[in-house]
């Protein structure tokens, strides 16, 4: 197995901090925290095409960036993703509300239909959001407005950690330059010696 520090560093930076803070770090209203305005969210389904042309890039980025955070903070909400081969097909996010959809959701809902999304059960209402040609941050803003998700701000510790990592990265850049210079100097020295030796040989041959 890889060295512990490498493992820890990677786990902390790439994984854990990244999954805890950023766009999508928010909790959906659950059955206990649902209000009249924003009913509880029961499921999410995302459909987009395999390639990015035709406006599917944002949808994929949403899956890559936001969905893991949403899943982390809402472990009980099933989230499914369907990747299709139909490039001109829809890029759609289907949100399932328990009982009835929120007013904001019905206002923002797109006119697309997503045949890959599972049918809502009798206790659910689904709203399809058209996310073609949208940036993943825009998609997240829309989803937030529709569902009334409560964003979780980064704690002081997490901020400090982020800062520390940023510092490390900067220091790493500096060190890389420094070490490259040292290595270059060493290589030059060696080359010079080699040349000098070559000259001695030549002199001997003469």
């Amino acid at each position: 197995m890889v060295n512990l520090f490498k493992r820890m560093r990677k786990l902390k930076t790439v994984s854990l901090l990244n999954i805890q803070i950023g766009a999508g770090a928010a909790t959906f209203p659950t059955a206990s925290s649902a209000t009249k305005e924003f009913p509880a969210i029961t499921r999410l389904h995302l459909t987009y095409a395999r390639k990015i042309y035709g406006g599917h890039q944002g949808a994929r980025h949403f899956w890559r960036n936001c969905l893991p955070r949403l899943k982390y903070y809402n472990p009980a909400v099933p989230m499914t993703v369907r990747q299709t081969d139909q490039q001109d097909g829809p890029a759609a996010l289907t949100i399932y509300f328990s009982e009835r959809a929120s007013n904001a959701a019905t206002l923002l809902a797109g006119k697309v239909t997503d045949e890959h999304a599972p049918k809502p059960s009798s206790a659910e209402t689904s709203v399809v959001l058209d996310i073609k040609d949208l940036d993943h941050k825009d998609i997240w803003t829309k989803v937030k407005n529709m569902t009334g998700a409560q964003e979780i701000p980064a704690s002081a510790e997490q901020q400090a950690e982020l800062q520390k990592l940023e510092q490390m990265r900067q220091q790493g850049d500096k060190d890389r330059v420094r070490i490259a210079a040292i290595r270059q100097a060493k290589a030059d020295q060696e080359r010079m010696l080699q040349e000098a030796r070559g000259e001695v040989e030549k002199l001997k041959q003469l």
Partner: protein
Amino acid sequence: MASYSSLLPTAARGILSSCRPALHPSPMATFLPGLQQVRAASQARKKDQKTTAKKKKGPREFKQKDLKDMQQYALCDAMRYLRAFEVGREPTAAKYEVHVRLKTRRDGPVIRNMLRFPHSVQTESRICVVCPPGTRHEKEARAAGAVLVGEQEVFDAVKAGKIEFDRCLCHPDSLEALNKAGLGRILGPRGLMPSAKTGTVVEDIAVRVEMLRGGTVYRERDAVIRVPIGQLGFTPEQLRDNLRATIDQIKKDAAGLNDRITKEVYEVVLSSTNGPGFSLNGEFKSDESPDSAVLQGV
């Protein structure tokens, strides 16, 4: 100077030492003895290298890192993270894996075995059996659920490039025919070639097929055993049962190896197909972990 006189046979050394002053006649050729010395020293070093090359093998044990620097997680917490990383993946394709780090010597026997989980991980593995056609074994193998059974038909199918199975077993009676057919080149690289060493040449085919259908093969590589232990849809309880079964089996294997060889489980890391590895601390859940009921399904 001792360095070069030590290289010579004792008799010669005696002679030399008697005429040693003659070797350093004058300070005139100051650079010469220096040169000699250097040469002698380098010779000595070379000889040293030769003798130590045999001895030098590096540490005998694998280096173990101190785990107190490692942040460790309860099973439910690790599952929560991993499920977030695997969001949107095919629930049957994405799997939980466990990496068991052992405390062991670099040489010596390794653990390799098969294990049957309380909750089956693979959906279904297709098994091929090579045995003499028309025998009792053939019937039994088919009854146990093998997909492809026979001798010549199997060889033909493999040679034609149709390998539609994940495991291959062989009956000792057919071993000779199998070796003659020269399938090692095709099956070998895929790890499908039956051999007595891997336990895929067996008498009681039917039992083995049964076992293989729900079983998983694992082996120790560089002191780590890596096994898939669950589908992403598993509940924490199911995963815990499988994990426990795995660790118990590994401990049993380690105990059964040899009296003189000790292997211990050093670290257990839970990972998944697309996720990072989380070192487990042995707890089922911590105070912050969510209810275990929500950690299942997609």
